[in-house]
């Protein structure tokens, strides 16, 4: 992330904090990285926390970054945009000192990341931050919601890696290999290509009930191999969802995949600024229901029709029928009608998309297809 892009993020944050009546901002990370939740410290500082960390934006704009474990401070100095980096053994104590030095009352402080504070750690932070501090998770999520150019570049780079990873996966997937061996080779390859992490679910079965973490199961001819490939670049995750048949796919399998592909394209067409998230879900579900599988459009046969992708805001959240969100221009998420069908078992079919002024745009190079290997 360039210095200019970083300065722009901090400026947006300060503006939003002022709008919420706060003089200063404190961002917290427990360093438990997730595909589905924002890491505001990483997003705002450019530094990927290894241990519990925090970043403070003082009323005068000075940026302080507190890092644990202490030995990781050198990396923070080299990779973050903070004005000052502090190696830290007692994070709540350091934050209390900072607040006192800045002369900030608890009620003048907007705090983000507190949803990630464990019950064990929360009391010490409550004490350090002072009474009346303002929970700012939603404020920061809203600021970060419209992805900036740097974040979209990372999303596009990550998606390219995902597609390269998938092409590589097709070359190593064969009868006799274990799910775990295939996933491992993919994982290492993605790191070598430049991914800083990878959420990869890879599983295979003659009749999948769901996609899950890879196991020691040996691939066999006739298996349907499922892969959710989700590398990240500068913390920005992407996700492509692919289904591969080991051997020639049956007619039933092809028809099932075609059905989900149609649902994906219909959902894609329904994604535009202002659209209610449940309306997108209904559009996708209607395609599947019309084919006679409406009863499978609910858990446990599926979970969600998509979900936001960190590093930045995870709005609009899960793409579900119960969501209260509307889509906004700049939203970035994966849309996937992944689900179980009685004819084919569970199938994956999904692409990362971004919402533009006129509708959705694929971040990937195109829609995936039902592939086959070892036929």
């Amino acid at each position, binding site marked *: 992330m360039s210095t200019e892009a970083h300065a722009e993020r901090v400026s947006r944050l300060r503006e939003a904090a002022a709008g919420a009546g706060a003089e200063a901002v404190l961002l917290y990370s*427990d*360093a*438990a*990285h*997730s*595909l*589905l939740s924002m890491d505001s410290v990483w997003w705002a500082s450019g530094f*990927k926390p*290894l241990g519990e960390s925090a970043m403070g934006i003082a009323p005068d704009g000075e940026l302080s970054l507190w890092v644990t*474990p202490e*030995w*990781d401070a*050198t*990396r923070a100095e*080299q*990779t973050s945009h903070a004005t000052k980096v502090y190696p830290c053994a007692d994070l709540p104590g350091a934050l209390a000192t900072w607040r006192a030095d800045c002369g900030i009352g608890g009620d003048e402080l907007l705090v983000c990341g507190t*949803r*990630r*504070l*464990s*019950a*064990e*750690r929360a009391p010490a932070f409550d004490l350090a931050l002072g009474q009346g501090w303002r929970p700012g998770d939603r404020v920061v999520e809203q600021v970060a919601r419209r992805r900036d150019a740097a974040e979209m570049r990372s999303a596009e780079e990550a998606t390219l890696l995902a597609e390269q990873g998938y092409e590589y996966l097709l070359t190593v997937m064969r009868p006799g290999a274990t799910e*775990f*061996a295939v996933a*491992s*080779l993919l*994982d*290492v390859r993605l*790191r*070598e*290509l*430049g*991914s*800083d*992490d*990878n*959420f*990869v*679910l890879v*599983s295979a079965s003659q009749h999948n*009930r*769901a996609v*899950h*973490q*890879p*196991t*020691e199961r040996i691939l066999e001819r006739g298996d349907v191999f499922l892969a959710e490939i*989700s590398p*990240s*670049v*500068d913390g920005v*995750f992407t996700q492509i969802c692919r289904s591969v048949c080991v051997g020639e796919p049956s007619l039933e399998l092809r028809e099932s995949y075609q059905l989900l592909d149609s649902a994906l394209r219909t959902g894609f067409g329904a994604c535009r600024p202002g659209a209610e998230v449940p309306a997108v879900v209904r559009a996708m579900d209607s395609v599947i229901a019309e084919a006679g599988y409406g009863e499978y459009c*609910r*858990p*446990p*046969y*599926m*979970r*969600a029709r998509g979900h936001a992708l960190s590093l930045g805001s995870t709005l609009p959240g899960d793409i579900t029928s119960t969501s209260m969100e509307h889509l906004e221009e700049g939203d970035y998420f994966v849309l996937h009608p992944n689900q179980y069908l009685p004819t084919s078992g569970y199938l994956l079919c999904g692409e990362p998309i971004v919402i533009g002024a006129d509708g959705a745009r694929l971040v990937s190079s195109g829609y995936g297809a039902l592939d086959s290997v070892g036929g």
Partner: protein
Amino acid sequence: MQTMHAVLTRGRCAWNQRLLPADEYVDRLRQLERATRPKEARAVVVVGSAREPAGLTYLANYMPPSAPAVLVAVPGAEPTLFAGLGGGRDHPFIRSICWVNDLRYHPRLGQGVAEVLAERGLDGGSLLTVGARRAMAAGSYRTFVEDLEAYELVQADEEFTRLRRRKRPRELRVMREAAGILAAAKLAAVRAARSGQGPFGAVAEADRVARLGGCHDFRALICGADGSLRPYQGGHGSSAEADSSGALVAYLAAEYLGYWADTSVTYPWTGVDRSIDPRPTLEAVCGAIRPGVGRAPADGRDLANLLSEHAGEVTVNGIGLELDESPLVTPRAAEEIAPGDVLSVHVRTANGAGTAWASRELVVTDDGCSPLSATVGD
């Protein structure tokens, strides 16, 4: 050592019943019930999360990949595991890796636990909780407590930690297997470095060999030319970006069936300045480790002196289901070392000219300690 948390922890995505049969877990649960009997609780509730999975993996062979999960154990009754996302979509998979038969999904864990307790005829009394405050976010924990307001919640984390520290024979066997996998990975890293690959490339080769050898998770820290540590990952500002042929100094860790082994690699040793050779310090630290050392200053004098003398260079901590678990032995806050502990000892030394790293895993015996395995050493 603390490493970068991976977005997807993999640990228990396999269940090897040859090494860890179901009765191993049943016995662990019984041991926990026995250890907590003085507290006169009516049930034990163990909570785990992706970040804090150890309690659940120890008792249920389940590592939550995302949302927290809860094990409810009422003495004399079948235990219940609440796990998974999406209304139980993951349950067929979880059944394949977990011995607990009563597997359920509940969007609100406290309510689910209350329902199980009611089914078991428990409408009040005290419940022992393990891991709840560490594994749950503050807000979720508040809701959890509210949902169980009919019960008195008593924390039993200390008893559980003590129980988990004394490694059982089957745990030691798995940890030795993990060490064996890691030894092969370390060798692969050295071979790659010898053939001219930079540190990142060498560690990537170790990663590949470890995973194909059966390990499920792999972590590494790579020492840069300036002596600072970088997590093993690709991308901008990473260890990969600065990769160039040269000395390989790194920390490697491999996880097998939930259990970790760790080691260090320094290549080539011939280039290491004798003044920073960490091996004499490693020998001295390992020689000072015995039961009772740590909390009692008199008994722990030798080790305490060594840790103070080499502050910032030496780390001594437990290893098992976590890379960094109890006991933590530092000059600032030492826990007493006890028989059955498995310890990871690291010595990393540096001067302006370079860095060297040596390490060893030890099992604490009744009168001293011995190497966990002959396969991973310095």
